[in-house]
């Protein structure tokens, strides 16, 4: 983790979303897909806490020019402030934070599933996977066509790409999960990666588990610090032997988790029981290689 005052290179619209590019050479050098940055809000505001944004692109140009790009939707006072930040202003950034996606050692066929602007880190991941010689298929979904995140870039990056919208205004009508079984069959996906709304992650992870396909999800949970000290971003994670569970921190133990080990019922639902009666199945942990500078 590095803390830096970073110059804003650009703030752009990306469809209905905003995209912020920061001059952050050290963070860009260290960044891996799935990791995020914590952007500090200036003093003198009613809001205090940093805002986490997953890294959409890290361009490692060596030396001084490296940049990090994040994508966001204006959903509250923090993102409203950020959308008004101007070029050449400086913002306080900590990053890269968290555990990244890991790349498969053996498996060749990778499927990336994204919802809304949550798909942003998957483009970074797709580049890494391609650089490691993997086949990349993508399904990107959103409510409407204008909320589909960077479909053209997606088509350029992926070997095959599907788009879904709930209103049918782009691609197939429906949700990414409607298309999932068909795409998994067609692509012979051996590894699934997902990023987007937590309910979508759950559906993707459960589908993958049923097919015995390893699945990594990048989750989102409210975090006060993003540094591993506040313990607010708790995700109930099942032990790797299936015996018991523990609340882990999405910021430092995540945000990328093995989808089969997240106890979705307890995290997203209202599971009351403290320990599952019959334990969990032992989980799929494929051999992996770290993503990173090529």
């Amino acid at each position, binding site marked *: *983790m590095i803390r830096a005052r970073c110059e804003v290179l650009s703030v752009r619209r990306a469809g209905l979303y905003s995209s912020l590019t920061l001059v952050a050479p050290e963070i860009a050098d260290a960044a891996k897909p799935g990791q995020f940055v914590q952007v500090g809000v200036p003093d003198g505001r009613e809001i*205090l*806490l940093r805002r986490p944004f997953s890294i959409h692109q890290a361009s490692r140009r060596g030396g001084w020019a490296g940049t990090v790009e994040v994508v966001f939707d204006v959903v509250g006072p923090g993102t409203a402030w950020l959308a008004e930040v101007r070029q050449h202003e400086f913002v306080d950034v900590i990053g890269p934070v968290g555990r990244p996606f890991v790349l498969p050692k053996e498996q060749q066929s990778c499927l990336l599933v994204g919802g809304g602007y949550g798909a942003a880190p998957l483009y970074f991941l797709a580049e890494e996977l391609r650089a490691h010689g993997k086949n990349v298929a993508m399904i990107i979904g959103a409510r409407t066509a204008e909320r589909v995140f960077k479909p053209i870039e997606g088509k350029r990056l992926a070997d095959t790409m599907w788009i879904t919208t709930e209103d049918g205004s782009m691609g197939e009508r429906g949700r990414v999960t409607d298309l999932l079984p068909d795409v998994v069959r067609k692509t012979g996906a051996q590894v699934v990666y997902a990023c987007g709304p937590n309910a979508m992650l759950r559906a993707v992870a459960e589908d993958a588990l049923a097919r015995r396909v390893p699945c990594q999800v990048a989750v989102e949970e409210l*975090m006060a610090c993003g540094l591993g000290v506040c*313990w*607010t971003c708790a995700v109930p994670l099942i032990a790797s032997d299936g015996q018991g569970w523990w*609340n882990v921190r999405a910021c430092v133990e995540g945000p990328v988790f093995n989808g089969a080990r997240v106890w979705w019922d307890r*995290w997203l639902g209202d599971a009351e029981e403290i320990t599952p009666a019959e334990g969990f199945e032992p989980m799929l942990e494929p051999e992996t290689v770290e993503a990173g500078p090529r």
Partner: protein
Amino acid sequence: MPGDGAVLTDGRGIVSPPEPSLEVDLNGVRFATPVLAASGCFNTGREMAELVDLSRVGGIVTKSVTLNPRKGMPVPRMAETSSGMLNAIGLQNVGVTEFRAKEAPWIEGLLGVTPVIVSIAGRSVEEYAQVTIRVRDLPGVVAIEANISCPNVERRNQVFACHPDQAMEVVGAMSRLTVVPVFAKLTADVTNIVEVAEACVRAGAHGLSLINTLLGMAIDVETFRPKLGAVTGGLSGPAIKPVAVRCVHQVAQALPDVPILGIGGIRTAKDAVEFLLAGAWAVQVGTANFFDPQATVRIADGVRDFLARKGLRGPADLRGRVKVEDRVREPAYPGSG
């Protein structure tokens, strides 16, 4: 006081006051700066070490440790509020056995870097006693903080600091079991905090940590649901500072010889000075660490600048110096004025 230190020259004949020292002595418990990291906001410093020079942090109060592991509350555990935040973690921690195994070597490694205060929480007097026995011998631990005021517990009657007699029982049991100084961390959610403070001191508390988060609640008006999984939670951040300053002032007036660690919404050096003026001997910074990992260092530097500007020698020169004599005050509580 101001200006009565030795007069020095800078070699060019200009008279300058002596460089202030940030060292504080809380009746035998010493810190290199009066700005410590508060419990639940710094763990044991391991994660923060990447972003802040721990040798410049006045001290670290660990996240509270309990006898057995606790998994804590369901999410959402946090809600941002105006100039503050609510949290309901529920004292999640690995329990004292694993704490000893994993954190003791790290804490020992902090010897000579920064002093550590272990915070203890529990559901019963017995639990506080059992944990005290298991942490009292850890090298690097200069004090124990009795967290008897966490609002995120299953039942309100587990907030021992809401009742002077219960607070006394816990602090008494802990103090009898160790020569390590015990600081009692109190809540402002009581009618008379002075009464609780006095009970803790009578029971053997070396000092007092004032204050813990305030019990609060926030509701999502779209869904009609509480914003926290636990419904209620602890309010922290600048929003609670005036409440904390008031508590420190009241307790310091009643117990001027008892070391007070002032806590509650400290974000700037000015905030820290305010607590010192109210009667704190040192302060702890909590929520500010979340958005500024270097907050403790930045604030200590600012306190040094403030002392230099005022020609003071150290934080003790500020302690309890708030001038209230010329103010007409209503008694804080019936009969206490």
